[in-house]
């Protein structure tokens, strides 16, 4: 934790201290490997101990993740990881609690738990592996699949309108919202580091490739040849610009709409300056919705990072305040609290 690191001894660990002895069973070529290595690489840098770290997952390909971490872990029920992790984090605010989830797990069956964990601002680092498909059940469309998606369950094309995970998170009052992707370990590590440092609920969408059922879903944005012109790297306090030599940028029109422009046409001073700490989530929301499909320029990085009370600490504070006011619980007094009478 950023706010406690100064006063605690930093445990010395190496990557191998965080790797469990279990055989990793994802498909060869799966994007999950890259994410796992990023997390395992980051952990020793955080100065935390494996025994104080808990990974909780739901069900889905990504949810096998906890088995591969040499920490405490629970592979739970489809969609329920945020709720179970809330129990861990509220009972034990001293722990580092991570939630590993997928687009079906957290946005379909577990949508309710995700939004409420974010709203409460439970101290969780939530990594959403978004591959826009159901992998473990072998290829049905997911709540983030594009309309028209042809899958086993939608042979005539999906007619569902998809969720934008970041819009959902921001709409759910999330205090930390970010996006990264599975091809850039350095970017992932940096985003995960900031997510972890944030006290409260941190939500990270990771574009993750399912090379078996939805291969290349994000290629038009994150592949090496596309990246430069299609990825908008958000940096707090910096004008939002991207492309070769930063020739493109983002401006807000007089109608309040964000638009991508040529910097040469508007001048750098016209560009929107990114402010992740802005309390009003409006701009973060607009940035989250700047891209409408998998083929247009898409922002990455930290969209929002604001401070709000951490739920587990607040619960603990009420317990502490009650104990201070009333003293430790006295069972005998409790049993007599509604009045008593003597017989005999």
């Amino acid at each position, binding site marked *: 934790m950023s706010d406690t690191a100064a006063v605690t001894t930093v445990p010395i660990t190496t990557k191998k201290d965080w790797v469990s002895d279990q055989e990793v069973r994802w498909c060869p070529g799966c994007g999950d490997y890259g994410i796992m290595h990023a997390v395992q690489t980051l952990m020793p840098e955080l100065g935390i101990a494996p025994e104080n770290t808990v990974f909780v997952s739901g069900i889905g390909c990504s949810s096998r993740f906890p088995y591969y971490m040499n920490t405490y872990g629970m592979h*739970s029920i489809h969609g329920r990881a945020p709720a*179970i992790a809330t129990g861990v984090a509220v009972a034990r605010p001293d722990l580092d609690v991570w939630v590993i989830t997928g687009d079906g797990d957290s946005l379909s069956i577990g949508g309710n738990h995700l939004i409420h964990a974010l709203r409460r601002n439970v101290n969780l680092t939530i990594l959403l592996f978004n591959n826009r498909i159901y992998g473990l059940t072998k290829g049905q469309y997911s709540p983030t699949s594009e309309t028209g998606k042809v899958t086993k369950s939608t042979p005539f094309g999906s007619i569902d309108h998809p969720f934008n995970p970041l819009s959902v998170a921001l709409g759910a009052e999330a205090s930390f919202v970010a996006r990264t992707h599975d091809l850039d370990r350095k970017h992932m590590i940096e985003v995960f580091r900031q997510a972890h440092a944030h006290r409260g609920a941190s939500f990270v969408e990771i574009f993750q490739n399912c090379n078996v059922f939805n291969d290349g879903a994000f290629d038009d944005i994150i592949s090496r040849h596309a990246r430069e012109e299609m990825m908008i790297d958000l940096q707090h306090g910096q004008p939002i610009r991207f492309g070769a030599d930063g020739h493109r940028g983002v401006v807000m029109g007089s109608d309040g709409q964000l638009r991508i422009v040529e910097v040469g046409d508007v001048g750098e001073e016209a560009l929107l300056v990114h402010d992740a700490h802005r309390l009003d989530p409006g701009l973060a929301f607009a940035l989250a919705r700047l891209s409408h499909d998998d083929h247009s320029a898409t922002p990455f990085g930290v969209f929002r990072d604001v401070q709000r009370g951490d739920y587990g600490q607040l619960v603990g504070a009420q317990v502490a305040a009650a104990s201070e006011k009333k003293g430790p619980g006295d069972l005998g007094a409790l049993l007599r609290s509604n009045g*008593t009478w003597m*017989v005999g």
Partner: protein
Amino acid sequence: MTDTTPTIGTTEVIDAAPAQQPEQISHVVVRFAGDSGDGMQLTGDRFTSASALFGNDLSTFPDYPAEIRAPAGTVNGVSSFQVHISDHDITTPGDAPNVLVAMNPAALKADLHRLEQNGLLIVNSDSFEERDLAKAGYDHNPLHDDFLSSYRLVEIPMTTLTQRATESLGVKARDSERSKNFFALGVISWLYSRPTEPTVEWIEGKFKDLVKASNLAAFKAGYNFGETSELFDHPYQVKPAQLPPGEYTNISGNVALAWGLVAAGQLAKLPLFLGSYPITPASDILHELSKHKHFGVRTVQAEDEIAAIGMALGAAFSGHLGISTTSGPGLALKSETISLGISLELPLLIVDIQRGGPSTGLPTKTEAADLNIAMYGRHGEAPLPIVAAYSPAHCFDAAIEAARIALKYRTPVILLSDGFLANGSEPWLLPELDTLPDISVSFQTEMNHVADDGTPEFWPYLRDPDTLARPWAVPGTPGLMHRIGGLEKEDGTGNIDYSPANHSKMVHLRAGKVAGIANDIPLATITGDADADVCLLGWGSTWASIDAAVQRTRREGTKLAWIHITHLNPLPRNLGELLRTFKTVLVPELNLGHLCRMVRAEFLIDAKPVNKVQGLPFTAAELEDAIQEALK
């Protein structure tokens, strides 16, 4: 409040001793009935408290509609509170009330059929106007013809009298309406010679300013009216009951259950974590526990039933006593997580305050039809221990027992109560705290296995040979990091293992662990005559009705046996043997025969069901009839 308290106006302070000598009676059943907004639950509750402090034995039965405010004045909106007070040990709220207080025609219509013949019927005659009668569906005024001739009718214009008693305080006529329940309480308090101080003190502590003054004035006016109106010949008195000596409090099932959970946390030396979602009739446990944070209690009102138990499970994984409280529909939603808890083999307590079902059913009425879902309502082979409370006060002990089993055997446990126990109350002889069991367990802190190469390691599923419980190693413990999950795992290591033989072994181990708890629970015992032909087998809240029916039947010289069980899974290990000694086994249940089918299947005995599913407890008379039928 001191000098700001308005004076009591024209109403005089109550006399210390009634002028007329009260007639001693052994017991009385009073039913207060009125509109949902009339404050009948509060009135009944106050009468109960005064009686409890006076030393009577008592049993209560709040009976109210599901709607917060059904259309005023209609039968659907009638809220009732029945209380049985006695100078001897009683268990039921009584079959037929001796006294019915009806605040309006709807209340009369809803509850008159319950009143005993020649019973005392007290009505608020002010509320029998044409409009009130029409709302209740009367095409005549029952006060004006011989419709009520088989009852002792006493008409009191309570609304007018309350208004008069409060007008000098500056209370508006419309506002004084709200105090008329205290007028009714005053009348009944005089009639049954209740001490007035507890009620006066309660009003003074509960209300402020004009409302306090108005309620006090109404209560005292009602009390004095009873004494001076000559509508009643004389008051009655129910002497204190000869209960075992000790210190008593009046307790409802939900409060007892919440306190039992607090006690369980203390006895286990563990912080308590409650994940809950509001649902009738379980919400009061959430409310009560939320008040007691200084006992280290954390409560979270979750976003739904599934999250509620998920949080409790997460807390259990983290070393807390995890609890989720609910009613039937919520239990259905929690099913998947309970199964996970069984697979994870973590301690978890699920409390189901049963109500009438299926679906929303009768949310405010009692039923005990969740035994099947508690026993069988999960996917896969997923047995768990079940404990059932049998009386409001027993909810305290049952909560501790359920927690004990959950912790010792690392398993989800379902604790069953029901709406009748939850809201009903009775005097409770407070336990000596040092007699409560130590239910503490140890967390695993050391490696428990040595690998082939001699390296010490931690096996999360290495079992205690006696209990078959696995170690509880909580996050934060160095060296014992491990992963658990819903996938089938290898016994011992806990590693994922789908092999046929291992799955069979694990299914049998989990079942065997629960079955083995039979060696750690009390044997079933027979109440009454072991050499009787007929034995009643009961569980849960039917205890009260069965107790009354068995006492009455045996008093008439008939031999009768009764076994009441609090552990429904596993069953007491001598139960089959005991039941086989009787020619006839009757199983009264507020369902269509859940336990009956269990014992038939388990013990191959021809047990006979006695069922009631009306949202109401059995009356003792109904059970007496069933017993007589069986004796033929």
